[in-house]
């Protein structure tokens, strides 16, 4: 979450010698990160990135308190000034509304009536403060709630008291109830949303998200109900997500703002109404808080802090840091109660204020694991290098595709129709016209289980089949194993894992023969559509003296094979291989009905 805060407003609560730039630098290193620091006329505006666990810092006071803890570590004087004394209130009048609240939905419910307000525009100072904080100034009543929210980080709502009609029931919505919010949008509620029903049986508030239009402040408003609560954060989040209404109030409420801060906000509100709208307290303050905050204690042993930080820090130093953040004797301040639960949370507080930049840096000297998984990343890389060496370009294509093929997983919340299915084949992704390859998973659904992620290699964009086959053949030679490929059009697909598991890093070495080989060519006429693979395989296996068989040339139905004979024990001659030659001719004749061209000597 980001929040804009003007330097001038921050200075009202932070007394320091540090410049706006230094504040930004120090806070970024030890606390909330300053995304931007913009200079404006006579002022600077910070944009802070506040992490979701620190809703307390979504406020002027929260940032001022944090800065007062951080700046002294950098040698700057810094003091946090609290929001000042709060007004005296009277509790002798009655509360004119009949209220029903479920404390599970609303752990703390406070409200007070402000009577005889004058609706007008706010003073220039307030307007400026709000606008520099990125909030539009509307009228003094709305501005008071926004001012309080920015100052405390606690959302505040104001109703036109006379429109509520004497009754408020805070409850869960029923499915299909409707409400029109302040921004004139009408929502049909999913049910289970925290809402308030007014005296006329209509919903008057979509709690924690936005007020109802039917109870809104207008130019004629005389009496106001000032309304400060905390809500069940999970419900607020669910409603806000379902209705896609991510208002600032919702973003704050779903992160559990400090319930202890509710009353100071309400009191400050009463004062502001007096000051800015001539409003008077018109009822006693109602405060339904059946389970008040119980202070909790979380500590970290000094040993743990020293070990995690790797520095010799003393207990007094640790205590000083924690005190500056509002921790006293292990007691967690109420505004940090949600976030601080375990000793490691304390370690973090000490470490970041001490300064991560002051901690040493060293590699671990612990033992190196030896139980490796069965993976073959280096082989994959070698295959890629070879293929690139053969002139192919490696591409990475998206696993998400647009086409609905049978047996594919479907995306429930697709970002676009281009990415609706998880591919079970690499082929549809390879539509490019140049020779390319990719190693990637395809995803094969399995009922009740995660899909099988099958690692495949695709070689694509090679329309001439012999070339495509040549690449696979070369890869087979490099990997010393036969690679079965599935040929589809100008592409070949290989299931890679079995190949990786089977492959030999080194060949079985064959001793070099002392005797020269005899190399000769034999030409056969093969019937049409004879598969050459089995023919070559047949020749190869006819005799152990045949060391290799290659297709040398072909013309119409005539195929010339170059056959190499070699022995490790003797010099072969034309006479010694004559019987083998005969056997080749005979086998090819019976098996493939093929005729030798020419005569055997």
């Amino acid at each position, binding site marked *: 979450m980001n929040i804009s805060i003007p330097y001038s407003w921050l200075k009202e609560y932070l007394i320091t010698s540090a410049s706006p730039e230094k504040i930004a630098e120090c806070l970024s290193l030890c*606390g909330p990160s300053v995304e931007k620091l913009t200079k404006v006329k006579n002022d600077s505006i910070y944009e802070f990135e506040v992490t979701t666990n620190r809703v307390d810092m979504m406020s002027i006071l929260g940032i001022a308190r944090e800065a007062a803890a951080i700046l002294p570590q950098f040698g700057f004087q810094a003091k946090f000034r609290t929001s000042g004394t709060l007004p005296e209130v009277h509790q002798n009048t009655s509360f004119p509304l009949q209220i029903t609240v479920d404390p599970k939905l609303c752990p703390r419910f406070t409200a007070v009536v402000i009577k005889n307000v004058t609706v007008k525009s706010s003073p220039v100072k307030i307007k400026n403060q709000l606008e520099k904080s990125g909030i539009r100034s509307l009228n003094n009543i709305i501005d008071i709630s926004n001012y309080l929210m920015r100052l405390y980080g606690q959302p505040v709502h104001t109703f036109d008291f006379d429109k509520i009609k004497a009754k408020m029931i805070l409850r869960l919505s029923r499915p299909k109830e409707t409400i029109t919010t302040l921004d004139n949008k009408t929502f049909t509620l999913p049910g289970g949303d925290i809402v308030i029903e007014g005296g006329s049986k209509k919903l008057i508030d979509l709690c924690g998200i936005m007020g109802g239009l039917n109870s809104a402040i207008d130019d004629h408003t005389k009496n106001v109900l000032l309304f400060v609560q905390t809500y069940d954060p999970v419900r607020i989040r669910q409603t806000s997500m379902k209705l896609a209404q991510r208002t600032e109030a919702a973003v704050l409420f779903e992160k559990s703002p400090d319930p202890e801060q509710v009353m100071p906000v309400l009191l400050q509100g009463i004062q502001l109404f007096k000051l800015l709208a001539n409003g008077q307290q018109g009822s006693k303050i109602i405060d339904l808080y059946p389970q008040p905050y119980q202070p909790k204690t979380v500590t970290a042993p000094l040993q743990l802090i020293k070990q995690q930080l790797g520095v010799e820090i003393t207990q007094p130093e640790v205590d000083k840091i924690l005190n500056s953040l509002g921790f006293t004797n292990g007691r967690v301040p109420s505004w940090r109660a949600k976030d601080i639960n375990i000793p490691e949370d304390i370690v973090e507080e000490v470490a970041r204020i001490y300064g991560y930049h002051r901690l040493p*840096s*060293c590699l671990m000297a612990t033992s190196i694991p030896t139980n490796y998984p069965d993976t073959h990343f280096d082989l994959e890389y070698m295959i890629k290098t070879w293929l690139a060496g053969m002139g192919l370009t490696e591409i990475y294509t998206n696993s998400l595709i647009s086409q609905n093929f049978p047996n594919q997983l479907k995306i429930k919340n697709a970002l676009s129709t281009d990415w609706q299915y998880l591919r079970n084949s690499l082929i549809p992704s390879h539509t490019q016209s140049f020779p390319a390859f990719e190693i990637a998973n395809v995803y094969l659904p399995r009922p009740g289980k995660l899909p099988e992620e099958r690692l495949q290699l695709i070689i694509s964009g090679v329309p001439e089949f012999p070339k495509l086959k040549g690449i696979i053949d070369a890869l087979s030679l490099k990997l010393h194993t036969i690679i079965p490929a599935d040929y589809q059009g100008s592409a070949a697909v290989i299931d890679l894992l079995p190949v990786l598991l089977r492959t030999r890093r080194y060949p079985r070495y064959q001793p070099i023969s002392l005797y020269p080989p005899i190399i000769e060519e034999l030409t056969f006429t093969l019937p049409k559509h004879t598969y050459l693979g089995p023919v070559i395989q047949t020749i190869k296996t006819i005799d152990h003296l045949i060391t290799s068989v290659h297709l040398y040339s072909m013309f119409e139905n005539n195929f010339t094979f170059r056959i190499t004979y070699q022995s490790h024990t003797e010099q072969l001659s034309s006479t010694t291989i004559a019987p083998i030659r005969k056997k080749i001719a005979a086998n090819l004749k019976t098996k493939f009905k093929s005729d030798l061209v020419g005569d055997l000597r």
Partner: protein
Amino acid sequence: MPANLLNLKNQALASINQTETPADLEHLRVAYLGRKGEINQILKTLASLDPTAKVAMGRLINDVKSTLETSLNQRLKELNQPTTAWLDTTAPGTPVPHGHLHPITQAIEEITRIFEHIGFTRVRYPEVDWDHYVFEALNMPEDHPARDEWETIFIDTPAHPTKGKMVLTTHTSNGQVREMERVKNPPIRMLNLGKCYRRQQDATHTIMFHQFEGLVVDKGISIPHLKGTLDYFGQQFFGPKIKSRIRPFHFQFTEPSFEVDFTCTSCQGKGCRFCKSGWVEVGGAGMVHPNVLTAGGIHSKIYSGFAFGWGVERVLRLKPGLNIDDIRLLYSTNQEFLNQF
């Protein structure tokens, strides 16, 4: 006979050297090495020799044969060369096939090698995984606002009774608990590198991207160890003068949590238009949250650890000279782009 053979060899070599045309050379090849050539004639006489002499003679004949072959090829090369001694080294060479390894592959390889040097082992974990490993076991129950950071893509399939919904992994952190379950007893030094998916697509985000995740678990692992690892990686990957720094952040699965910056590679940390402050943000890191150790079956009072997870595309873009303005190009088939690598 050896003398005979020697004569033959010398005579042949002399003829080869005197040849002036490739055609004449081919005649010589047939005359000496052809099926009915001189060498084969001598081979025929082998039959009459006793076995020991046969072996010796066979070897000699082979030597002569290969000498002649070399000499023939050498002379052919000479004859085919331009007659003048002038050689234009500026003329283009004959093109040989040269393909391209994808920059992501190159980055992955480099990252893997860097971490292997300090004892990390690369692993592979599911790219489609249960909510349990992606969020729940990482201390992020359902409806937790922290989940907003991850633009999760869900698979349209029934949820697992105990492990929850099926999702595309939004980060490689799903490997953390999976690795703890695989290894059981520390030490752990894992590098999980794989594809991740988030629901966003623009010039700096692609719906599919790559992350690498480091996880170290052992007795006494501390923040300085994380800093040491970051410095080591930064100097290896970006350059020897690069420094790292960590700043406070929040992740549910680490405590404390950090954001990691490296000194800008284009200005060496002085501050420039690209980085403004002299630092560039690379990603998140932190000390493993005790709840995550517990979820992985590791005793959190005995062991501690750190983890980090960053985008491969992100670190690639920060490489000096590789300021790719639109990372969507990485997942295109644009040859103008691919052919540069």
